[in-house]
C-alpha cells in the first residue's frame, strides 16, 4: 500500500528538487528534499526507509549528470545510520530529528563525494564540504521538522493498528 504512494511521492520530490529547489540557493546550499524525505521515513519506519532511500536516490540520479546509482548508495547509507541511531536515542524528540538531518546530510554528501572520486570525477573535498555541504546541512536541519510533520501524517494514515509500544510512547 505505502509503495503506491511512496513511488510517485519520491518522483515528485526529485522533480521538485531538479526544477525548483536547486534554483533557490543561499550561500551555495539548497534544500535537499528527497534526502530529507528518506531520512524522515527512516526515522518513522526504519524497515521501509532503506527502500525509500534506494528509490529516492535512483529518481534523483535520473535527473543528474552524475553516475547512476551513486545517490542511491549515499541515501541508503544515510538512511541506515538514521534508522539505527534514532532508536538508540531519545525517541523522536525534535532535536534528535534535527541532529539526524544534519548527520544524514553529512554522511550522504561524504559518500557521494567518495563515489564521485571512485568514478573518475574527483571534487575538492574540503572545498565541497565547506561551501556546499555545510549550507545544505543547515537548510536541511532547518526544514526537516515540517517535512517530518507531513510524513508523520502519511505514516499514521497508512499504518494498520498502532502497536502497543507506540501507544505507550
Amino acid at each position, binding site marked *: 500500500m505505502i509503495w503506491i504512494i511512496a513511488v510517485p511521492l519520491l*518522483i515528485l520530490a*526529485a*522533480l*521538485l*528538487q*531538479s*526544477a*525548483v529547489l*536547486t*534554483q533557490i*540557493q543561499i550561500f*551555495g*546550499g*539548497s534544500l*535537499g528534499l*528527497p534526502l530529507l524525505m528518506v531520512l524522515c521515513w527512516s526515522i518513522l519506519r*526504519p*524497515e521501509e526507509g*532503506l*527502500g525509500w*532511500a*534506494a528509490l529516492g*536516490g*535512483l529518481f*534523483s*540520479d*535520473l*535527473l*543528474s*549528470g*552524475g*553516475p*547512476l*546509482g*551513486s*545517490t*542511491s*548508495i549515499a541515501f*541508503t*547509507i544515510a*538512511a*541506515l545510520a538514521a*534508522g*539505527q541511531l534514532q532508536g538508540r536515542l531519545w525517541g523522536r524528540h525534535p532535536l534528535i530529528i534535527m541532529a539526524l538531518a544534519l548527520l544524514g546530510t553529512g554522511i550522504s*554528501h561524504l559518500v*557521494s*563525494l567518495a563515489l*564521485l572520486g571512485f*568514478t573518475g*570525477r574527483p*571534487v*575538492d573535498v574540503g*572545498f*565541497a564540504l565547506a*561551501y*556546499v*555541504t555545510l549550507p*545544505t546541512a543547515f537548510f536541511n536541519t532547518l526544514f526537516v521538522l515540517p517535512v517530518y510533520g507531513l510524513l508523520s501524517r502519511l505514516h499514521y494514515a497508512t499504518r494498520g493498528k498502532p502497536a502497543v509500544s507506540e501507544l505507550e510512547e
Partner: protein
Amino acid sequence: MSELRRRILLALALIVGAIGLLFLQRSGYWAPIAGLIQPPLVGVQRSFSRAYYDFRDFLTAPRSLAQLQARNAQLEAEVAQLEAQVVTLREQTAQLDVLSALLGFAREQPASRYITAQVVGRDTNPFLRYLILDQGSDSGVQRGMPVVSQNGLVGRISEVTASASKVQLIIDPQSSVNAKIQGAATPAEGIVTGQPTGELVLTFVPQDATMKAGDLVVTSGLGGGFPPDILIGQIISVHKRDYELYQTATIQPRNDFSSLEILLIIVNFQPINVQPLESGVSTP
C-alpha cells in the same frame, strides 16, 4: 536474525543493486532504458519549471513597470548580443592582421547553426553542475555539441536521449575548456576549470604571459572541443607567484548560470576527439 543484521543485509543488497546500475550505465546498456524513462519525466519537469519561472517572475516583477522591464530586458539582450559580436570581430580582426601579414590569406569562419532549447531542470547532485534541456537526438542534438547563450559559453552536451539532453556547464568541477586572453600582447593560453562554488579559474597560463583584471577570456579552439572565440568571462584577479610554474586567474563568468532559461545549441560544430593522438604522443 536480529533487526540490525536484517537491515544491514537489506542495505547491502540495495547497494549491490545500485552498483549494478552504475556498471549498467558505464557499459552503455542503460541508454535505451533511460530513453524510455526520461521523456515523461522531462515532460513533467518542463511544466514544473514553467510554473516556477512564471511564479518567480510574478513575485519579482513590479506590476506597474512591467512594460518598462520588458523593454529593458530587450535592450539588455541586444547589448549583450552586440558585445559578443564586438568580441568576435575584435578577435577576428587581430587574427586577420597576423595571418594577412604572415601568409596573406583571410580567415574564413563558417557561420554557426543553432537550435534553441529550454532549461527544464538542474542537477540534483549538489556537487555537479549540469542542466537538462528539452531538446534531444530527435532535433539533431549530439553528444559534445557546444551550448551557448547570448552572453557566451555555457557548456557542452554530455548525454542525449530522444527528447532531452544534459549539458555539463563550464562551472562544473570536471569541466575544462581551452581558453586564451583576448588581444593579449604575448600569447596567453590556459585551461578554464570550474569550482564546486560555481566560480571559474584559468590555470596553466605561462609565467611570461601578460594578463590583468578586466581582460576578456575566450575559447581558444585548441583540443577541438569548442569553436574558437566564444566569450567565457572576464578576469577579476590574477595570482602570480615567482616560484610557481604557471599563473592562475579567477574569472567572472559572463553568464549567470543560476538564471539560464533558453539556450542555443551549436549543431554544426563537430567536436574533434584528440585523445588517441595525445596517448600516442605520451607513449615512449
